[in-house]
């Protein structure tokens, strides 16, 4: 039978995502089950903490505002206009609503029944992605980032549930074990040297009889309940839960929940009366569920071979890709990816130290420079790093330096193997110029600052963005202090840094066209790093240095801090911060697309909208350059 109203609902829905991604018949089916809801101005559709509705919503006319309530504050998160979807939480998780939805005008919304829609999102990746994007963009409140971490896990698990749940789990094949005759101390030493949080206690026939985890040691030993030379039998949990090796992920999870344990012992026949062949931890289950930053970090920390680190680091690239596709704010993305990059470096240093014949003669600090130092490194880029070692006697200097050069050689080689290219300018700790004692470094910087020459500036500017990664952090702090002290005595440096910051003119030419490279194999492509990112990076660095701010290395954060310090320029600094994030995202997306660093952009490959977007971010570049030339007297 004809249903004119359903047809009109269909006509409206069919043009808007996610409905435009569905088949016509599906949209019609949905349209004929829609609820058309009239809301007077100020009427509440749902409140924060309300239980989930059976519908999610599409605005038909006028607007719905979404608010987040906290303490006494009500923050506007988003306003939805015609065609926007909202109230997606019931589709994604079973939690109650986290926002208020209130009509800001007299409005009509369509309620889309979730039961009809659900079959679709499980099978349709595009729809899934779209909904998650809208969901993520609405649930993210830029000011309370930490609380929203669960958003990641929310959809990552959902995404993978259908396919991974029925796979068999990857358990650890060589579990750490000890005999029933061992003492607690012996067991604990094994755990500590292998960096593993649990050990299985086995009998003579290698059958599992108990398990000891970190928390047993914490709760039963550290509290003084048992002495460390007592038998492992005193503190082990027994009996253990055993399973056979063909366990599915879903089963494993169920077993863990059912028995309230975090570890399952895998035995030959699945009973406790056969040989132990492996162990399955909560973490293994999580890892099977897919890309999760925590899991990636843990895997990196435990990696024994460079190849393992490389494979895990590649997972992070997948993660990066999906975050970008889902429009997760760049500040979150870069935080996560920086953590992972730092984790990789730390593990590489640990493995390199093992390769050395002797432990380091003195303490040292490993610094990340450049983009990693600024926590802006999203894709694999060149490695820029440096090493500081503690001061030693003059006669030992050469020997000490040689040790650290050798160590740095291992580290940079490993990093290269993982995917971080060598720095073409050789700004790496394996270069004797960048592997110095603390005093040498101080002198080096003082020299740069006092006897400025333009070439030194380029070299030194990268050093103002360093980030301590490994070793003794107090040395890096001392160096910073020394640099600032010298800076305060001289301000010629600022002028040179300023000149560099305005050296690249606005990326747009006189006729508002893009300034492209005019020679080399990148001819006619646009260098987004040199023309757009670097001017902002340089400006931010100069401005914070001139204000004696240390410890903020990230360009976007630097601008945000500057906005706090100079209310009169707040808007400009904020737009710089925004432009920087937008440009970095752009570069990263281009990099993923072309599988390179994303530095050079083929203009003809951009859509008109993308070009416009790019041009919009250039406006603050020109303005900030004007501020610099006035403030540091650069035009004179």
């Amino acid at each position, binding site marked *: *039978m*004809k*249903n*004119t*109203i*359903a047809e*009109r*609902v269909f006509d409206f829905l069919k043009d808007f995502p996610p409905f435009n991604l569905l088949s016509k018949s599906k949209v019609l089916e949905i*349209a*004929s*089950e*829609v*609820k*058309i*809801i*009239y*809301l*007077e101005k100020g009427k509440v559709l749902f409140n924060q903490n309300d239980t989930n509705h059976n519908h999610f919503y599409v605005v038909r006319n006028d607007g719905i505002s979404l608010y987040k309530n906290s303490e006494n504050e009500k923050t506007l998160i988003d306003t939805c206009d015609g065609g926007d979807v909202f109230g997606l939480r019931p589709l994604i998780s079973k939690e109650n609503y986290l926002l208020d939805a209130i009509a800001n005008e*007299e409005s*009509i919304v369509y*309620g889309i029944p979730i039961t009809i829609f659900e079959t679709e999102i499980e099978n349709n990746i595009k729809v899934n992605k779209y909904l998650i994007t809208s969901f993520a963009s609405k649930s993210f409140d830029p000011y309370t980032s930490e609380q929203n971490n669960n958003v990641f896990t929310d959809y990552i698990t959902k995404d993978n549930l259908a396919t991974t749940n029925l796979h068999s789990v990857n358990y650890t094949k060589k579990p750490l074990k000890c005999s029933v005759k061992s003492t607690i101390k012996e067991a604990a030493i094994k755990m500590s040297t292998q960096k593993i949080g649990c050990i299985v206690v086995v009998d003579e026939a290698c059958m599992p009889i108990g398990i000891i985890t970190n928390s047993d040691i914490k709760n039963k030993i550290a509290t003084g309940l048992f002495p460390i030379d007592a038998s492992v039998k005193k503190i082990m949990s027994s009996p253990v839960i055993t399973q056979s090796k063909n366990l599915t992920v879903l089963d494993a999870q169920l077993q863990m929940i059912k028995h309230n344990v975090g570890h399952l012992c895998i035995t030959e026949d699945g009973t406790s009366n056969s040989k132990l062949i492996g162990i399955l931890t909560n973490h293994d289950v999580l890892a099977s569920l897919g890309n999760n930053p925590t899991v990636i970090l843990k895997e990196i920390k435990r990696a024994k071979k460079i190849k393992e680190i490389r494979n895990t680091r590649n997972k992070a690239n997948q993660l990066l890709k999906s975050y970008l596709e889902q429009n997760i704010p760049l500040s979150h993305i870069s935080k996560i990816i920086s953590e992972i990059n730092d984790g990789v470096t730390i593990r590489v240093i640990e493995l390199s130290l093992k390769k050395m014949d002797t432990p380091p003669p003195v303490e040292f600090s490993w610094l990340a420079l450049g983009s990693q130092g600024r926590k802006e490194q999203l894709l694999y880029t060149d490695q820029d790093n440096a090493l500081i070692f503690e001061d030693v006697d003059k006669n030992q200097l050469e020997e000490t330096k040689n040790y650290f050069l050798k160590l740095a050689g291992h580290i940079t080689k490993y990093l290269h193997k993982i995917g971080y290219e060598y720095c073409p300018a050789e700004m790496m700790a394996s270069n004797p110029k960048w592997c110095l004692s603390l005093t040498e470094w101080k002198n080096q910087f003082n020299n740069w600052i006092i006897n400025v020459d333009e070439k030194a500036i380029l070299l030194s500017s990268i050093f103002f963005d360093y980030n301590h990664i490994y070793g003794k952090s107090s040395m890096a702090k001392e160096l910073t202090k020394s640099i600032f002290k010298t800076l305060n005595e001289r301000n010629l440096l600022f002028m040179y840094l300023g000149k560099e910051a305005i050296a690249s003119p606005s990326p747009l030419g006189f006729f508002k066209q893009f300034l492209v490279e005019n020679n080399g194999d990148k001819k006619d492509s646009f260098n987004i790093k040199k023309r757009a990112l670097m001017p902002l990076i340089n400006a931010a660095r100069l401005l914070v240095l001139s204000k004696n701010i240390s410890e903020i290395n990230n360009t976007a954060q630097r601008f945000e801090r500057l906005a706090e310090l100079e209310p009169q320029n707040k808007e400009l600094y904020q737009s710089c911060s925004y432009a920087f994030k937008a440009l970095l995202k752009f570069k990263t997306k281009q990099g993923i697309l072309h599988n390179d660093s994303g530095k050079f952009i083929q203009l003809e490959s951009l859509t008109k909208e993308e070009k416009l977007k790019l041009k919009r971010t250039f406006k603050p570049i020109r303005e900030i350059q004007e501020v610099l030339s006035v403030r540091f007297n650069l035009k004179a």
Partner: protein
Amino acid sequence: MTMKFNLFRKKEKHNLPTYFKEYQESILKTQKLPIAETRFIVFDTETTGFSHKTDRVLSIGAVAVINNTINVNDSFEVYVKQQIFKAETVPIHGILKEGRIDKITELAALKLFLKYINNAVLVGHHINFDVQMINEILKRNKLPKLLNKTIDTGYLFKKSKHIVYQIEEKNYTLDNLSDELNISKSDRHTASGDAYITAIAFLKILSRLNTNDTLKFRDLLKN
């Protein structure tokens, strides 16, 4: 005389078809409910003309409104086969005598309609005309008139306007309402389209009348 009358009544009642008896019973069982819980059926008919004696219903469209919400799956739309056909009104409603739309008999349409509306409150723009057209169908089938309570959006709209702007003689058309209440006029002059526009108008007028949350059902009826 009295006996004879009773007998006659009984006979008439006995002769009523089941579908009408069921309809009558649902009306008798109607409970008093607050506005938010009341089921309103907003409906409209397209006819061959304006005379309830000589013109015929070509289609009935209706939507149900409960608690400010229209459920699309609780809507009603039928097209009726008629012998009477007036070419001059075709440009208005667009229903051809032998069009491609599936049509059913007047009686079948009536049965479906009564089952759909039950004891709901009927709402329409200048509803008396539409009710009269349905009553004529009932009459042709030897049945009593509709028993539902009715609300006229034309009357209600006038009532929602400030006393200063209420013009007693003015007859607001559905187009006037759409313009003043800012409602899109797509599907105007199809029964379902008009029913939908009327439903939205009805909800908007209700919210204007209910400024201090004290609106009662009896305020909506003409006295």
